[in-house]
C-alpha cells in the first residue's frame, strides 16, 4: 500500500516546522525575543544590496561544496574529508599565485592557472581518501577526518612558516596579493565577484547534467544503490568510486580557490570556514536531490550572513544560524525515519 504524496509531504513539512519550533525554544531559553531574532536575520540577509551581495558571496563556496558532495553521495560515500579538500584547493591556488605573481604572464592567465591548480589540489586530496578506502579498506569517514586535520596542519604550517608575512607571522593569513590578481568584484568595496557566481552556477548545472543525464552518472547511481549488482551488470565499481572522489575534490578545490581568489585574496587559517561540513548538511537536507540543492544552499547562506546582525542588534551569538540549520537537518531526518516506520517502505 503506497501512500499519496500529500501524506508523505506532510512529514517533511512537519520536520521543518518542528525545527523552527525547536529554534524558537532555544531562543526562549536564551531569554531572547524569537520573532525579533528571525526578523533581524531576515533583515541581515535581505535588508540592503550590500548584505544581499554578501549572501551570494557566501553561497558560492557552499553550493560548490554541495555540488561535489552530491556526486559522492550518489555513489554511496560519506565524504567527510571535504573540508580538507577545500583547504588544499585554497593552498594550491595560493601556491600558483605566489609562483607566478612576479612573472610576465597576463594576470588573467595566472588566475586561470590558480583556479586549475586549486581544482587539482582538491582532487588530489580527495583521491588520497579514496585510495585509503579502496586499497586500504579505511572507512572514508575516519580517513577523511584524519586528512582534514592534516590539511589544517599543512595550512597553518604554511601560513606561519614558509609563506608567513615578512616580519611577524599573523593569524590573518599570508600577505594579500596584488589587486591585479584579484577576481574582479562588482564594486571596489564589495566582495562579490561575478566570475565566481558564474562558476558556481555552471558547477551545479554540470552536476545536475552529470548525475541525471550521463551514462557515467547512471553508473554512479547503480554503484551507490547496489554495488554487487552494478558489478555484475558490468560497471567497474571501485574505479567509479575513485572517480567520484576525484570529482568531488575538484569542486571542493574550486570552492577553496574561489575563497582565495575572490573573497580573501590571501590564504587564511580558516580558508574553508566550515563550508564543507555545511555542504554535507545541505545535501542531507535535500535528500541528495540536485535541483533543491542550490535554493537550500542559498537559504543556509542567507542564515549565515543574516545572523551576523544578531550580536550587534540583539546581543545574541551568530551561531543561531547553525542552530536553525542543524535543527532543520536533524528534524527532517527524524521525521523521515518516522515516515518510513509508520508508512512502510513504500513511502521512500
Amino acid at each position, binding site marked *: 500500500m503506497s501512500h499519496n504524496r500529500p501524506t508523505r509531504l506532510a512529514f517533511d513539512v512537519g520536520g521543518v516546522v518542528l525545527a523552527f519550533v525547536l529554534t524558537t525554544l*532555544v531562543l526562549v*531559553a*536564551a531569554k531572547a525575543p524569537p520573532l525579533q531574532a528571525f526578523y533581524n536575520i531576515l533583515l541581515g540577509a535581505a535588508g540592503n544590496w550590500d548584505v544581499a551581495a554578501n549572501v551570494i558571496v557566501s553561497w558560492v563556496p557552499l553550493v560548490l561544496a554541495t555540488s561535489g558532495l552530491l556526486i559522492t553521495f550518489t555513489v554511496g560515500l*560519506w565524504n*567527510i574529508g571535504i573540508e580538507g579538500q577545500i583547504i588544499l584547493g585554497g593552498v594550491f591556488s595560493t601556491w600558483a599565485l605566489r609562483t607566478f605573481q612576479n612573472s610576465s604572464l597576463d594576470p588573467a592567465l595566472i588566475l586561470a592557472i590558480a583556479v586549475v591548480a586549486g581544482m587539482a589540489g582538491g582532487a588530489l586530496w580527495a583521491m588520497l581518501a579514496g585510495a*585509503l578506502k*579502496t*586499497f*586500504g*579498506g*579505511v*572507512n572514508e*569517514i*575516519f*580517513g577523511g*577526518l*584524519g*586528512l582534514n*586535520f*592534516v590539511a*589544517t*596542519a*599543512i595550512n*597553518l*604550517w604554511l601560513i*606561519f*612558516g614558509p609563506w608567513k608575512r615578512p616580519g611577524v607571522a599573523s593569524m590573518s593569513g599570508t600577505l594579500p596579493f596584488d589587486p591585479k590578481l584579484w577576481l574582479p568584484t562588482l564594486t571596489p568595496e564589495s566582495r562579490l565577484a561575478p566570475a565566481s557566481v558564474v562558476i558556481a552556477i555552471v558547477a551545479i548545472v554540470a552536476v545536475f547534467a552529470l548525475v541525471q543525464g550521463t551514462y557515467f552518472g547512471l553508473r554512479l547511481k547503480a554503484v551507490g544503490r547496489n554495488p554487487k549488482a552494478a558489478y555484475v551488470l558490468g560497471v567497474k565499481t*571501485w574505479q567509479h568510486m575513485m572517480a567520484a572522489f576525484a570529482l568531488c575534490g575538484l569542486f571542493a578545490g574550486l570552492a577553496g580557490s574561489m575563497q582565495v581568489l575572490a573573497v580573501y585574496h590571501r590564504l587564511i587559517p580558516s580558508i574553508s570556514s566550515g563550508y564543507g*561540513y555545511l555542504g*554535507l*548538511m545541505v545535501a*542531507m537536507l535535500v535528500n541528495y536531490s540536485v535541483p533543491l540543492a542550490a535554493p537550500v544552499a542559498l537559504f543556509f547562506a542567507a542564515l549565515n550572513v543574516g545572523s551576523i546582525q544578531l550580536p550587534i542588534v540583539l*546581543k*545574541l*551569538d551568530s*551561531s*543561531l*544560524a*547553525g*542552530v536553525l*540549520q*542543524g*535543527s532543520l*537537518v*536533524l528534524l527532517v*531526518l*527524524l521525521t*523521515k*525515519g*518516522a515516515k*518510513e*516506520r509508520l508508512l512502510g517502505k513504500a513511502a521512500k
Partner: protein
Amino acid sequence: MTNEAIILAGLAGVLFSAAPIVFAVIGETISERAGVINLSMNGTILLSAMGGFAVSLASGSLILGFVAGAAIGALVALVVAFASITLKQSQVAVGFVLTLLCRDLSYFLGNPIMGQTGPRLPQLVLPGLAQIPILGPLFFQQDIMTYLSFAVVILAWIFIFKTKAGLELRGIGEKPAAAYVRGSKVEGLRYLYVAVGGALAGLAGPMYSLSVKAGWKGTISGLDGIGWIALAITIFGGWNPFRAAMGAWLFAFLQWLGLVLQPSLPGIPSQVLQVAPFPLMILTLLLVNLGNAEWVERSLARLPEKARKRAAKILRAMRATPPAALGTPFEKD
C-alpha cells in the same frame, strides 16, 4: 626546582589534561562495544562544557555542574540511539548533524556567560600517597576528576572483560542475533549502553570548563576538535579501555612534548605533533583492515597452500576487529 621535578610536574600535567579525553574515549568505547557509533562527540563535549559551566555558575555547586554535563551527554546520545535503533536512520548521519548542532547550541546559549569566572575544581592531594617519590607527584597530587579518570579506566576494563553484564555487552555488539537467541534484549541494552557512554563523554566537557580549561570562552575555547580526536583515539584503542586510555595519554604527552620542544626545534612545526593522532589512526585502520581488501583476497588465492594458510593466520591476528555488528541495526529475523 630540579630538572626531575620539572619533568614530573610536566608529566603530571599530561595526566591532568588527558583526563577529560580518557572519559570521552571510555564512553565511546562502551557505546561502540554495544554496536552504536556516537559521532556527535565533538558537539557533545562543547555543549556539556558550556552547560556544566552554566549550571555550576548559577548554582555555585561543582557537583551539579558535572551532573549537568553527564545529563547533556546522555541526552544527546539518546537522540542518536533513538534515530538509529528505533527509526533505523544512519548512525553516521545523525551523529554528524548533532555534532554541528550541539556545537552551535553551545556557542549560542553560552554567549551570555562567556568570559565569566566560575567555580574551579580544587586540587586534592592524597596524604601519604603524595609523598611517595616519583609516583607521588605524578599520580597523587591531582584533582578528584583525574583520580576518577584512572578509576574509570580500571572499572570499565573490569566491567567489559570480567563481568557477566560486560560479556553480554560484548555479545550484543559482536553478534546481536546470537545474543538475542540467548535472551538478551538487544535494543533495550543498546539504548542503555549508548546513554552510559554518552554520560561519560558528557563528563569530559565540564572537566574542561571547570578544571583543565576553566571558564567558557566560546569559539576560542580551544575545545572544538577534541571530540574528533577522541573518536580517533577510540579506534586506535581497539575498543579496549586500557589501550584507549593509553592513546589518550600518548596524545596529551605528544602535545606537551610539542610545547616543550618547540623552542629548541624551530624547524618542526607545532602542528605536526598536534595532528599526530590522525596519521596514527589511519595507519592503524590500514593495518587492521588489510585482510578485507579484495586485491588482498585475490593475491591470497594465488599463493601455494602453506603460504596461504600462514598469511591468512597473520591477517587474522592483526585484525583487531571492531565489534562485528558496529553500525548495523539489529533485525530480528
